């Protein structure tokens, strides 16, 4: 009897620490697939390895090909480096010693957190030394009055969330990769995610950062104050710079109180016009309790049904919206939501829908949205784009791209989903295997499209390795020049995550 109960829970409880099991494309080496030239960096020698061993000890250095393999390939299996060495420091001082040595030797390094980045930023392009934060996972302090948490960069997002729940708080960000991604990686990519619509971006929520510069100097900007206008706001240089300006070692972040009442509704709609209407009415009628507003097209939701066997609980509709409300009073929230939903049904804005306030159900409904990326990857190869677009332009690129790709028989799917409340579309194309032809048909077509309507070619995933050529579609030459000058000042030898972010 007991076994059946735990089976039930195992079935319904999805562990978010995952890696898709079946993928058909074994990633080619980045240097071959994308034709890049190695920079003038030193190559790793036995002596270097001995120096590293002295810094981190013999057990926290990996040099065996089989051990290093996982660090060389990204989550999407779209890039592959051939680093021979992974270092796992535990302290800021160890990171500092490693970088000081690498800078003197002009050995290139690649910072890595949970390796869930979607732009190929977390993996070496050639033989860069990987510095993994996985063992820098101590929670340092939590102040329950201010709600400020300080921790090391390698804390896994879900670990922090679990810790905070015990204290009645939660992280200001949440994303599908929470079981694996680390706060240092989140900060370095300025990750957005599902709660941004309510709690704002990491530029607002991160109060302090400690980082190590390329030359090994430690920059301590670990303010735990909400307001700190002393001089230039250096922490913002590390937020979203994807490991190219410094190595983040500690983070202080403000964490909201965990809401007592959470409700979720999944709605099915017949057209994009109705989707826009829901955007307006949800903001108007749910106001301050709206905490997520996600959109998926039918094709995107079908992927989790087909590849992960999740059940779509309502009838098939061209568009779906997932709405979450969070508040401090369940009666108040439920009344508001009920009124909003009744209106939407009466006015035929919504064709079908379901609603949940039970944590188990909420989890099941969110999985439909959160596991799309994982499900898409099971098709084989995923070309994924992450755009910021105005609500009016948000979806039109999906049918346009579908049309543009219609003569390529190897394209399996073209779909769109994303953080609709923030105007952030994830545009996806899949094929069984990587195809240069498909890639060259998608790019620069999609970038030109986004640039024309004044959107951003990278909303939250960053530039990494794969999108360096796209920066020019969203930034002027003057802006790019200033970025290059900043890089020159902070990392004159260019050892920090080379070939990333800035146009090559």
């Amino acid at each position: 009897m007991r076994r059946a109960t735990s089976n039930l829970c195992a079935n319904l409880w999805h562990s978010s620490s995952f890696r898709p099991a079946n993928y058909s494309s074994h990633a080619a080496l980045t240097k071959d697939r994308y034709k890049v030239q190695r920079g003038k960096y030193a190559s790793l020698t036995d002596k270097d390895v001995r120096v590293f061993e002295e810094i981190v000890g013999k057990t926290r250095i990996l040099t065996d090909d089989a051990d290093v393999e996982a660090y060389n390939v990204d989550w999407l299996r779209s890039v592959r480096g051939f680093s021979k060495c992974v270092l796992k420091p535990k302290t800021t001082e160890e990171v500092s010693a490693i970088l000081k040595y690498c800078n003197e030797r002009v050995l290139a390094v690649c910072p890595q957190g949970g390796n869930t980045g979607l732009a190929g930023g977390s993996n070496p392009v050639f033989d860069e030394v990987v510095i993994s934060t996985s063992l820098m996972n101590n929670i340092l302090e939590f102040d329950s009055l201010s709600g400020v948490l300080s921790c090391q960069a390698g804390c896994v997002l879900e670990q922090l969330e679990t810790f905070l729940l015990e204290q009645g708080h939660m992280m200001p960000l949440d994303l599908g990769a929470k079981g694996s991604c680390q706060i240092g990686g989140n900060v370095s990519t300025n990750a957005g995610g599902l709660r941004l619509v309510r709690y704002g971006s990491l530029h607002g929520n991160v109060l302090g950062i400690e980082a190590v510069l390329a030359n090994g100097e430690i920059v301590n900007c670990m303010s735990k104050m909400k307001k700190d206008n002393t001089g230039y706001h250096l922490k913002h240089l590390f937020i979203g710079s994807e490991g190219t300006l410094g190595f983040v070692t500690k983070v202080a972040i403000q964490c909201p109180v965990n809401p007592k009442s959470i409700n979720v509704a999944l709605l099915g709609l017949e057209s994009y016009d109705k989707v826009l209407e829901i955007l307006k009415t949800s903001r108007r009628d749910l106001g301050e309790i709206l905490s997520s507003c996600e959109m998926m097209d039918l094709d995107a939701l079908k992927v989790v049904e087909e590849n992960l066997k999740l059940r779509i609980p309502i009838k098939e509709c061209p568009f779906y919206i997932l709405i979450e409300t969070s508040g401090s009073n369940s009666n108040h929230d439920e009344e508001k939501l009920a009124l909003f939903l009744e209106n939407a049904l009466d006015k035929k804005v919504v064709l079908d829908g379901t609603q949940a306030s039970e944590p188990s159900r909420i989890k099941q409904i969110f999985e439909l949205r959160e596991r799309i990326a994982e499900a898409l990857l099971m098709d084989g190869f995923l070309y994924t784009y992450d755009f910021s677009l105005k609500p009016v332009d948000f979806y039109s690129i999906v049918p346009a791209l579908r049309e543009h790709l219609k003569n390529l028989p190897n394209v399996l799917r073209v779909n769109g989903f994303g953080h609709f409340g923030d105007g952030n579309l994830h545009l996806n194309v899949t094929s069984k295997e990587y195809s240069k032809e498909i890639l060259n048909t998608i790019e620069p077509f999609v970038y030109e499209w986004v640039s024309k309507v004044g959107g951003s070619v990278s909303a939250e995933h960053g530039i990494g390795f794969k999108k360096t050529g796209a920066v020019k579609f969203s930034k002027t030459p003057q802006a790019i020049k200033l970025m290059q000058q900043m890089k020159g000042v902070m990392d004159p030898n260019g050892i920090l995550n080379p070939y990333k972010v800035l146009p090559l």
Partner: protein
Amino acid sequence: MARVLVGVKRVIDYAVKIRVKPDKSGVVTEGVKHSMNPFDEIAVEEAVKMKEKKLATEVVAVSCGPSQAQETLRTALAMGADRAIHVEVPAGDYETLQPIHISKILAKIAQDEKVDIVILGKQAIDDDSNQTAQMTAGVLDWPQATFASKVEKKDSELHVTREIDGGLENIKVKLPAVLSADLRLNEPRYATLPNIMKAKKKPLKKVTPKDLGVDISPRIQVISVEDPPVRQAGSIVPDVDTLVSKLKEKGHC
């Protein structure tokens, strides 16, 4: 055609971490999210399916407990039950309410409402008693088909596949009968918005155990509720040989 009675219990949601009260008198329920017992959802689904297949005329949902039990009944109504009966048991009394009491209540309602089939979850995930269906059948002196993973109606009989240790058992029961739903019986539906709206207007009747003539005075006394022992921290061994010898030491191989 049959009338079906389903029991639905409000339990702490299974995604919530259970906490024992500091005085060890029970677990903390206040401010904790609850939901319908998952096995009861399966029971409701089966009853609603019977109605959709025109094997049943009416589905009646019952829940015993304090006023919040009505939320669980509304969920059952939104899933497709036709009407609901809330057996009001004040929070204080509810703590010592046992399967013996529930089965007497259900048996009385089954008779009053002239039902032909009672479907209950095989157990509730909070107390894990696994007794209510069996005792209800006992009180009524009706046949029982417990741990059902498949139910088919043939004339005035039900053909039921039961999940038993090491396999499946096929049995026939004459109506009226009591069933208990096992995990694989079906996949319960989500209540859709239009149905949630409709459920608000469906009838919900309130009765007390006294109205039904059932004595709910406690038969047991809770002495202490405690957390399971904390799992001991693991340790890292340097090599396989040490691992094997440690396992041998503890008698694991």
